[in-house]
């Protein structure tokens, strides 16, 4: 535990020192992972499978706001789906409309949640997202989580039925649109997961705001259990064919990772270094405000149990006591 705390302090000071470089590098890494995942899992348009294009797009994302990353990911997805079939494009556009109406119109602060949720599904640990979003975000984070779930299942349907969709030339366009739409809309798994994740975000947020000891750890525990219960009950009622082992094991990993994230929590502890410029009548000020670091200096306290001087006093009194007798 002590080693972890020391590591946390090192990371804090490292982050404060090199924040200007760390954030773009992290954004570049995330963008690269997202674009590579999109290209490897969809990849229907050859023109944008080019690694040079992916690198340039990731580089752009590294110094531009997260909204640009969201836009470029959306564009990549759309381009691939357009190359596959027009009916899927229409369904994807409807999903984008859903995201616009319920998320982008009201909030622009949780792009990261929306970007990472489908990625976590690909990595088989989606249960991490509602716990993390509830723990570090606001109840509004439930909206991008649900949007991410919807987007993942739409894309999952498209990739799962790509061969059938590409070959079904005999059907009319309307029939194919109908097939794709009903395939996505009647996906009970999507509805159950979206509901479970939304409830989990709200539950985790509610518990971590309570003024009780270990509220955050408790929020993670209760959130993970609630997630498992809702998913399994949903599975029982609607017969959605969840893998019970996958849900339980994934939730345990998700909870463990959230606990780790909680330990290295960046939001409040890790204040940013500020560089500001201003002036008054007499001076120009170029201020670099570095946050104070509570670096735990290794403190060594030597407690002397017996010293000669103390022993002398004891001996003297002992001798006096003897002579007094």
């Amino acid at each position, binding site marked *: 535990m002590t080693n972890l705390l020391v590591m946390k302090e090192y990371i804090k000071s490292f982050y404060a020192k090199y924040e200007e470089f760390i954030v773009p590098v992290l954004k570049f890494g995330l963008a690269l992972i997202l674009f590579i995942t999109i290209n490897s899992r969809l990849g229907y348009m050859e023109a944008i499978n080019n690694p040079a294009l992916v690198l340039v797009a990731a580089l752009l994302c590294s110094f531009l706001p997260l909204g640009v990353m969201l836009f470029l990911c959306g564009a990549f997805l759309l381009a691939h789906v357009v190359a596959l079939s027009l009916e899927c494009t229409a369904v994807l556009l409807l999903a984008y409309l859903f995201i616009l109406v319920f998320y982008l119109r009201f909030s622009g602060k949780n792009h990261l949640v929306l970007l990472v949720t489908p990625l976590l599904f690909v990595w088989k640990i989606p249960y991490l997202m509602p716990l993390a979003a509830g723990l570090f975000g606001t109840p509004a984070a439930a909206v991008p989580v649900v949007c991410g779930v919807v987007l993942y299942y739409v894309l999952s349907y498209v990739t799962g039925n790509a061969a059938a969709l590409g070959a079904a030339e005999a059907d009319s366009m309307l029939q194919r649109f109908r097939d794709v739409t009903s395939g996505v809309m009647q996906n009970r798994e999507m509805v159950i997961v979206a509901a479970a994740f939304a409830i989990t975000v709200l539950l985790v947020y509610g518990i971590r705001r309570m003024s009780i000891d270990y509220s955050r750890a408790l929020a993670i525990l209760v959130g993970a259990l609630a997630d498992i219960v809702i998913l399994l009950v949903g599975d029982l009622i609607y017969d959605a064919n969840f893998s019970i082992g996958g849900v339980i094991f994934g939730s345990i990993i998700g909870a463990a990772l959230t606990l780790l994230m909680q330990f290295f929590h960046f939001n409040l502890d890790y204040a940013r270094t500020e560089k*500001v*410029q201003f002036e008054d009548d007499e001076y120009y000020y170029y201020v670099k405000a570095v946050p104070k670091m509570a670096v735990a200096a290794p403190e060594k306290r030597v407690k002397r149990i017996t010293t000669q001087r103390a022993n002398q006093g004891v001996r003297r009194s002992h001798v006096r006591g003897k002579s007094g007798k």
Partner: protein
Amino acid sequence: MIDQEKVLRMTKMASYEEHGGKKDMAVAGYFRNDYIGMQMILSFVVVTLAFLAAFGAWLCFNFVEVMENIYSMDLVATGQKILLLYLIVLAGYMAVTWVIYLIRYAQTRKRLSLFLEYLNDLDEKEEEEGL
């Protein structure tokens, strides 16, 4: 001689200005009702487009049934039902927009009034030093 307390306060103010302060100033540039009204117009456009798209998708999905029954169905009653549905969706979305942007405007004014309070303090202090 540099006044350290003044520098500290000015740094905090400049930092606020840098991170969201400019946006807050743009929002506070409107009267409350103008700001909320503008957002509601934007919401009206978005929800109308979304409803049209959803209606179009529903029409494509049920194209065969609609075409088979188009002569037998009561078009006026169907149109009224669709209009009623649109009005309900619109009213709900507008209400959510109104609440969200009302809260957002109040929060913005609160942050900005604190900033202006700091600014006034700074001005007063400079005037005192000038005298």
